């Protein structure tokens, strides 16, 4: 095992983390401001990927078309779903929210199967990014590099919006004390819809970026949803900072674990056993981490600063 390999795997972990951040940021805002458990977020990611693939295939393999269809499309979908089904649940307890959004997951999974069929759909990386860059002596796919870059830029943009604009100030205030914000005359319903649509757009962006590297299929949202929930709970609900650092931690732990645990285990165990246990235990690590955080510091590692 060389340093080059380790650094490459680290970069892979960052890439996964960045994708998780795109999803976690939207989800944590919805949670923090509207106190709303939104399990449908994974489905929005899936719809983003499907919209992207549809745009890509309809407009002669154009990644730009895919982006133009996916991001606004998912934002619109999020807005519609929120207005129609979810807004009435803000005042209900978490159990009802969990159940309703769980039902929507099942619904969306079938909608995509009905429209696009049960087999996977595919889209390719844009031509310009289909090569490799040489990193520490090893070739690294240029496209994954682009994902990291886009993710970091979005993180920066979110930071600027949240901390340097008026809208961002309202969002932060809403996360701290929604009733006060409403009492001060701000249109809290409009703010909620805005936050939800923003989260949906980010999920759509994540779906767009992930489309070319994974298979776009029904149910692709659930594994990512679980990871995203782990991220926001570990990082701190309502906190963008928490989403960022939490996502990186989860992404790196998962990837490094997946890559190196089998190697480590193979010293003691038979090969295919080690290969089965390696990724499984790596996955367990993330949940162990979350359980530890919840038991010792229930508000998360980087919670929203109140007061």
């Amino acid at each position: 095992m060389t340093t080059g390999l380790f650094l490459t795997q680290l970069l892979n972990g960052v890439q996964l983390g960045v994708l998780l951040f795109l999803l976690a940021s939207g989800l944590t805002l919805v949670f923090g401001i509207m106190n709303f458990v939104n399990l449908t977020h994974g489905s929005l990611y899936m719809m983003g990927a499907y919209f992207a693939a549809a745009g890509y295939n309809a407009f002669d393999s154009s990644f730009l078309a895919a982006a133009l269809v996916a991001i606004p499309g998912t934002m619109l979908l999020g807005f519609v779903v929120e207005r129609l089904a979810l807004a009435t649940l803000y005042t209900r307890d978490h159990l009802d929210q969990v159940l309703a959004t769980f039902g929507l997951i099942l619904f969306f999974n079938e909608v995509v199967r009905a429209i696009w069929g049960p087999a996977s759909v595919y889209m390719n990386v844009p031509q310009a990014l289909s090569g490799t860059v040489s990193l520490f002596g090893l070739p690294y796919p240029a496209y994954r590099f682009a994902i990291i870059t886009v993710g970091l830029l979005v993180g920066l943009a979110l930071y600027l919006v949240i901390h340097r604009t008026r809208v961002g100030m309202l969002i932060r205030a809403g996360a701290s004390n929604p009733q006060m914000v409403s009492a001060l005359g701000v249109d809290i319903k409009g703010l909620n819809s805005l936050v939800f649509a923003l989260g949906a757009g980010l999920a759509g962006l994540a779906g767009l970026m992930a489309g070319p590297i994974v298979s776009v299929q029904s149910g692709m949202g659930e594994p990512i949803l679980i990871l995203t929930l782990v991220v926001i709970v570990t990082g701190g609900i309502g906190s963008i900072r928490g989403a960022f650092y939490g996502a990186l931690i989860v992404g790196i732990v998962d990837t490094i674990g997946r890559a190196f645990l089998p190697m480590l285990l193979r010293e003691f165990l038979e090969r295919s056993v080690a290969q089965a246990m390696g990724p499984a235990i790596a996955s367990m690590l993330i949940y162990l981490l979350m359980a530890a955080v919840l038991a010792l510091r229930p508000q998360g590692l980087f919670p929203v600063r109140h007061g």
Partner: protein
Amino acid sequence: MASGFTLTPRSVFAVLLLVGLGLVPLISGALAQPFYVTLFTRILVFALAALGLNLILGYGALVSFGHAMYMGIGAYAVGILAHHGVTNGWAQLGAAMVVGAAVALAVGLICLRTTREGGGMAFIMITLAFAQMMFFLAVSLRAYGGDDGLPISVRSDFGLFSLQDPNTLYYLSYALLLAVLLGMRRLIDARFGMVLRGCKSNERRMAALGFPTLRYKLAAYVISALVCVLAGMLLANLTRFVSPSYMAWTVSGELIVMIVLGGLGTLIGPVAGATALLLLEEVLSSLKFGLPWLDKLINQHWLGLIGLFIVFVVLVMKRGVYGGLPAGPPTAKGRPK
């Protein structure tokens, strides 16, 4: 609290449901359709699991998103022991109960810590985390099939009777369901249940009154877990197969759906909910209206319709199928059954 039998829509429904479930093997025998016994055994298994979860969810407002893991423990106890040649039902039961209790104690202690500060979200997430850990542990067990699962060639043998015969399995599940119902009734009506319900409405007050709330909640958690372990053992015997998918978080979600669908905070609710949900799934996948496009839509995409149905139940039928039935006029003792 004496439980006299009053004739209300709720009680009539409950009696009809339980009697109906008892008659299934006879009816299916008469119709020469052994498939119905299989279907209804499955319903009984999930009704049992839902009953278990209901103890802490319906009465204690502790939303556990990980109770499927206990079903998995029960199922794997049967599977792993059978794999090694131990098909004695009592041995399997003993192992399952011991492991289940140990895990429930450990997990419960850690998870219930988070319910101290309000905000039940932490409890939901941490129970989910433990269930996922158990899921991945099962996946990593290559020796017992891992992700592919483990076929079980011989069903449990309890000496006096063996579960080889489908009807025997059905009646055992039915008997267990009735026993657990009775047990739950006694538990809820006793002081234990009062404390639990008190914790649900205002835990601080209960603590101030001197009750060791954590101990009561932990006891309830362990009991509910053991009921699910029992259900898992029956499931493994029914399908003659065990796989990590029995512990998927979506299974825990479905258990919650069954409880809410039936009626949160009622005793028979989970049984009604399990029956309704699983029957709905079965009916939808073979429903034929005669219109090809509609039939195809319903038969192949019934899961989406169930999803919409769940949303509908949450938004509109807040009190569930059974819970929505009138419970009759309030009795002199205060609360109707």
